[in-house]
């Protein structure tokens, strides 16, 4: 029962939290760049305005793909907060991502096509590390269930420091922050135009924004799991993590896709794998 309430709470509150985080993100980014920045609530105004706009598309199937993207992103988070199997959450997450990529392909536009291809590279880059993260939680807590992992008193972060740093790397890829913002960007005046999202507008673009808010909350939820033994510490960790992401975003410029792939896979193969090997053979005594 509590798990259903948690899932519903996520579905209702996550867009608010995610939007707020996005607003804070923009504010801090602006301050780092010596600007005043928009009000914290600006993302909500933006999305509200998007929903007011006339719906214009290249091809209608795009909208079906984006609706599926939003639905499955929300489902992913609902499963996560309901305490379900973390691997299933990851698979649903991948499914949601494939939908936005397909939406971009459907338009048959040069810019969204290249964005879609590059988004797939990011997907390929972060996938191994996210699976190893789940495996790490299993080794520490003995369960793949998010509910059990969150309730565990084992200090996961102490067992999984390498996995945590690896996860931060792919978090940057996942949030499409520089230097890994290879598939799309916030500003539509670069070589990609807007890449992945070039051909979306109006309510459909609004749905992509909301899905991104849902996504941010799930990803920060995974950060929470590393510190689940102490909820207060966990919240601090989430805040520090996110500020760090913003800092990275503003320090680096976009790099080639090779960097994304090498970083994601390197994180998994070196940080993730070695951490798990040490854990597996030395601590758990298998």
């Amino acid at each position: 029962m509590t798990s259903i309430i948690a899932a519903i709470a996520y579905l209702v509150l996550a867009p608010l939290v995610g939007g707020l985080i996005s607003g804070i993100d923009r504010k801090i980014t602006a301050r780092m760049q010596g600007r005043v920045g928009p009000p914290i609530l600006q993302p909500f105004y933006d999305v509200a305005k998007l929903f007011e706009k006339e719906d214009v598309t290249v091809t209608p199937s795009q909208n079906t793909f984006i609706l599926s993207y939003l639905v499955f992103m929300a489902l992913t988070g609902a499963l996560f907060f309901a305490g379900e199997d973390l691997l299933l959450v990851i698979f649903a997450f991948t499914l949601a991502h494939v939908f936005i990529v397909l939406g971009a392909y459907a338009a048959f536009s040069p810019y969204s096509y290249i964005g879609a291809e590059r988004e797939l590279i990011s997907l390929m880059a972060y996938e191994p590390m996210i699976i190893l993260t789940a495996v790490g939680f299993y080794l520490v807590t003995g369960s793949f269930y998010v509910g059990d992992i969150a309730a565990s008193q084992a200090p996961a972060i102490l067992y999984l420091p390498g996995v945590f740093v690896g996860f931060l790397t792919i978090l940057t890829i996942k949030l499409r922050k520089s230097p890994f913002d290879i598939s799309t960007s916030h500003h539509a005046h670069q070589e990609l135009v807007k890449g992945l999202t070039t051909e979306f507008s109006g309510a459909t673009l609004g749905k992509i924004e909301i899905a991104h808010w849902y996504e941010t909350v799930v990803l920060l939820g995974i950060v929470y799991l590393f510190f689940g033994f102490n909820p207060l510490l966990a919240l601090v960790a989430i805040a520090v993590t996110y500020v760090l992401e913003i800092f990275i975003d503003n320090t680096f410029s976009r790099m080639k896709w090779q960097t994304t792939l090498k970083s994601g896979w390197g994180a998994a193969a070196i940080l993730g794998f070695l951490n798990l090997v040490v854990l597996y053979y030395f601590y758990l005594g298998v």
Partner: protein
Amino acid sequence: MNELIFLIVFPTIIAFILLLLSNNRMRHAIVACSALVISAASIYLLATSYARGAVYYTVPFEPTSLVMFAIEMGIALLLLWLGIRFKQYIAIILVLIQSALMLFYEFTMGMGMEPVRNLFFDQFSIIMAMIIGIIGSLIAVYAVSYMQTYHDHHPEVRDRRRFFFFVTFIFLAAMFGLVFSNNLVWVFFFWEITTLASFLLIGYAESEEATKNAFLALKMNLLGGIAFAAAIIYLASADPAGGLLELDALIASGQAVALVPAVLISFAGLTKAAQMPFSGWLVGAMVAPTPVSALLHSSTMVKAGVYIIVRFAPVLAGSLAGASIGFVGAVTFLVASGIAISQSNAKKVLAYSTIANLGLIVACAGVGTYKLIWAAIFLIIFHAIAKSLLFLCVGTVEHRTGSRDIEDMDGLIVRMPRLAVMMFVGIAGMFLAPFGMLISKWAAIEGFIDAPFGLLFITILAFGSAMTVFFWAKWMGKIIAVTPYGENVEGTVSREKWAVLSILTALTVLAALFFPLISSGLVEPYLLGVFGETARLAQDNVIIMVLMISLLLILPLSFPFYAKEEKRMPAYMGGRPVTADLRFAGSAGIERTMTTRNYYFTEYFGEGKLLRYANPICILLILLAGAIAAGAVL
């Protein structure tokens, strides 16, 4: 017992009828009817026998074995003749070695042997029989219509359709024989028939390339055959009464006795399942007409290879030899998934994806815990359905558009909408939640986690899956891109083809919906029988999967709603004036057309580049397994 014999004998009879029959309409009718009969018989077997567990039948060993021996020698002579004709000397040597082994066995050991329980079935055999009976015969039905178009398009190929369908049905009969035989000598006989059948089908076009690739397949599989024959001789000398030649007795006899033959037969399985370094033959096999590829990849041939390794999993489990065989599979999975990224030929992508998935099955079977065998059996089932669908889709596209290159599949959704949707479902079935292959991969992760070397296997699996997502999703993107040009060319696809494709599409979805039933009805009882323990997916996860499938079925309903309301605009082309078919004035006034191309990364994932590392690694692993087995003998 009669249904088992029927499933072996009936396709054989049909094969001979088809060999004699040159009338095309009659062929259509006979293939369709016998496909129906074979599917019905395998479903009958399922319905009447699934609850009976493992059942063994006493069938006299002689004179059947003598007939089989005579046929084997006949085949050897045929292969020798073909080898001399095409100057394939290595093949000749391999045939001679294998025949010498079998002659030695037959005259020094075979005479005194009386294995009794020669035929059997259990839940795993039933699953295999369903795959062979339903998917195999569907492919045969499709092939009738396909081969007609094939010969229209390829006037240079001699029309040997009688021979083609003869071999196809012999192939099916041999597969049934293989999964129902409890006597290893018989398994070996059917094993060799499948080798011969695939050799003949790959060489169907009689071009230089086809002949070369057919002989490549032959040579690699003969190598496996020699190992198989060696295993038989080993067992016959270990127990002159022939009791160990019974599969169930052998597997129950424990590692001390069974490890050596298990490694030898698993080696044969590796060659047949096209694991590295033997992957070349399956890639080369794509020169054959597409239904042959569909057959080889989904319901026959390669599945025989993994079938036998999964059978021997209880022996391999926990041994270092088993782990090395498992690593051959894991490396193959990883590297083949990578190579698939670099291929734009659709049949080649499918071939490497098959090799990869077989690798995963071998990895599961080599490690051999009950959880991993659960995953392996489901990989066999789901892969058979989705892969046959995809091959037949590619074959249809090739006949309509003249290309099997993924780069030419732009806007397939516009040109062949129904077919594109089916292909889309097939691809989704290969890698996306909540479809079959993903369920199995998930089970594999959960299985490897408490198995020896589990962490290494999981890491390989994680990287391999990531690459899998990449190459499938970019193909999906190609076919669903809605081009503003292109007209519908679907009209001329025959009714038979549509029927087969629709059934396979439906099966892809239904298998994902009803896999809990397959699990509780067949796979779990099998595992309980063999391991005394069983795996299953947790109840709430099953519910979530069903929920996800329902969502996937509902969401497309939003499409008509969007199609009605939206205002349409052309795609953004940098603000240049563009014609309807996406031509624009480039620099210096030259007219250009907007085209899109996928990433292939040949410089990182090229075939030669990756095989250069993977083949030696796999050879070393196989040698390691062999050395451990040899150490056990000495």
